[in-house]
């Protein structure tokens, strides 16, 4: 399979005053096309740091990382922003929709940043909302949507630019059980039906149990990387 994300020897150190705190201690990881992967580990294990580095939001102290063969460490901030726009979709724990835009406008937003013509982006945004089952709520602003609905809009936004990979940071943490189940089912369906690659940092067993690849980070290293069949994922 083709590696969408290829991390080699990734380290990340933070400075806390005069103390050097290692967050990642040499991570080698390849995320392949069509992966539906969870990234788990105890708090402080480095999973969010790794997700940030994979997403081009943060830079490694050492090591190399490439997305679709493009070396992220060689890019400046503007180019990194462009790469995030075109190749990476983000789903956050706190939804992070733009409050002054309606659901469809939120989904359209990244397409606007990509200079997609108005008619095409509106069509694609509506199509995405349809995929996540929110076609009847396209004109509602986030404040008039439930948490689960907002997260589904966030998923639609992440997918609108047809990214190489969707990175989700604790996507179900703020959702009740049923809503969380629905969201996992949605992402799983998108993965199976359209081959969208997902990497989700999570503590949530409901998410972990549905992924076909389970990566555990401990003390800044990959402690285990397990591939499972769909039946095992349940």
């Amino acid at each position: 399979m083709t590696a969408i994300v290829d991390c080699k020897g990734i380290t990340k150190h933070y400075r806390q005053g005069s103390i050097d705190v290692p967050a990642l201690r040499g991570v080698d990881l390849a995320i392949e096309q069509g992966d539906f992967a969870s990234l788990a580990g105890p708090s402080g294990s480095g999973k969010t740091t790794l997700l940030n580095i994979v997403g081009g939001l943060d830079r490694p102290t050492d090591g190399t990382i490439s997305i679709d063969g493009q070396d992220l460490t060689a890019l400046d901030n503007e180019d990194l922003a462009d790469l995030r726009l075109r190749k990476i979709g983000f789903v956050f724990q706190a939804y992070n929709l733009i409050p002054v835009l309606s659901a469809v406008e939120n989904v359209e937003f990244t397409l606007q940043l990509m200079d997609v013509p108005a008619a095409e982006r509106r069509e694609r945004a509506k199509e995405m909302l349809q995929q996540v089952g929110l076609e009847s709520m396209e004109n509602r602003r986030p404040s008039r949507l439930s948490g689960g609905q907002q997260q589904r809009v966030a998923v639609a936004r992440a997918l609108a630019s047809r990214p190489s990979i969707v990175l989700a940071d604790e996507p179900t943490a703020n959702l009740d059980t049923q809503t969380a189940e629905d969201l996992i089912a949605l992402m799983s369906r998108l993965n199976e039906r359209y081959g969208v690659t997902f990497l989700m940092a999570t503590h949530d067993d409901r998410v972990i149990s549905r992924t076909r690849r389970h990566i555990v980070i401990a003390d800044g290293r990959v402690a285990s990387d397990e591939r499972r069949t769909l039946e095992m994922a349940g």
Partner: protein
Amino acid sequence: MLVGLAWRNIWRQPHRTALSLGSIAIAGTITVFLLALQQGAYGTMKESVLKLMDGFAQLQPPGYADDPDIRKSIPDYGPLIADLVALPGVTAATPRAASYAILSNGPQSYGAAIIGIDPASEAKVSNLGSTVTAGRYLQPGDENAVVVGAGLARNLKLKPGDSLTMLGSAQDGSIAANILKVAGIFSTGSPDLDRQVVEMPLARFQQDFAMSGSVNLIAVSGERLSDINAAIPSLARIARKHDLVARDWTQLQPALHDAILLDGSFSALLYVSLVIIVVFIILNTLLMSVLERTREFGMLMAIGMKPRQIGRMVWLELLFLAGTGAVIGIAAGSAITAWATRQGIPFPGAEALFSQWNMPSTLYPQLSLLSATAGPLAILVSVAIAGLIPYARVRRLEPVTAMRSA
């Protein structure tokens, strides 16, 4: 995209936005009104002073202003006056001759400026006639009549109908002497003018002072001072043709011009202070808003928005805020000023002060494009420049740091 987003963003905190808009709008309204009042006051002051004696411009022999010698004269001025009144904006031109003389009434003697005027054309340039408080002003056909300032009349114990003796030096060096009859007494409110000026018919003056039909200057007037200011280049061209110089109002009344400039400078300080206060209020509000939305900016960067795009969006928010406030300020300020222009602003108790410049105690603001827009636009431009601070701050944000902020 950024424009629409920025516009919606400013309405996320409607109360805060309303307060910010209110600050800008009130400051804008104040500047519109005060600037219009100031312009109105300056306009009234200039026109009142100039209409009293000088006219809006004068044509004089070279060096006459510094050394008003009766021998510096303009012969054959008829065609010159015809040329002047033919100019666009010029409604009247009147010839004058002037000298100094000793005036006596019985044992009382005082020195005074004697001005020979043409009563018919003078009334179109000077409104001294309207300040006559006893007797009457000079009329065409008057021979030996004079009008005397109230202060001088008091000193010489004169009243209308009395005679006074004039003794001066004529243009050819001979004695200029005559007995003149007081037709009227004027009171301009200007103590200097009332104490030192006497007007007499030009024909009599030319005869008494051996002027051989010449005059010392031509005073010019128009409907408005601005008309004559616009005609100054043409006046100067005609003046050069006759070996004369054209003097505009700033040269005729340099003290008034300097006083207006000084007052304008102090007012500018006031306006600048007002603008700075408003800019700080708005900037503080926006920086607070930037701080509150740092996490959101991090999210926007995460989904692919470039820091400069976010910076531009924040700057646009500031421009919308300042622009909307400025428009409200211009509208409210213009409406209030327009009302005040019709009603007038009375300044009770200032009559004595204002009368020094022959001004009424009610002032009328002068609403113009400048007065309506200068203040609000200054606020808008200042806010736009100050907005580069949050712009720069946003541009320095790193996505992870921003997303971690509370």
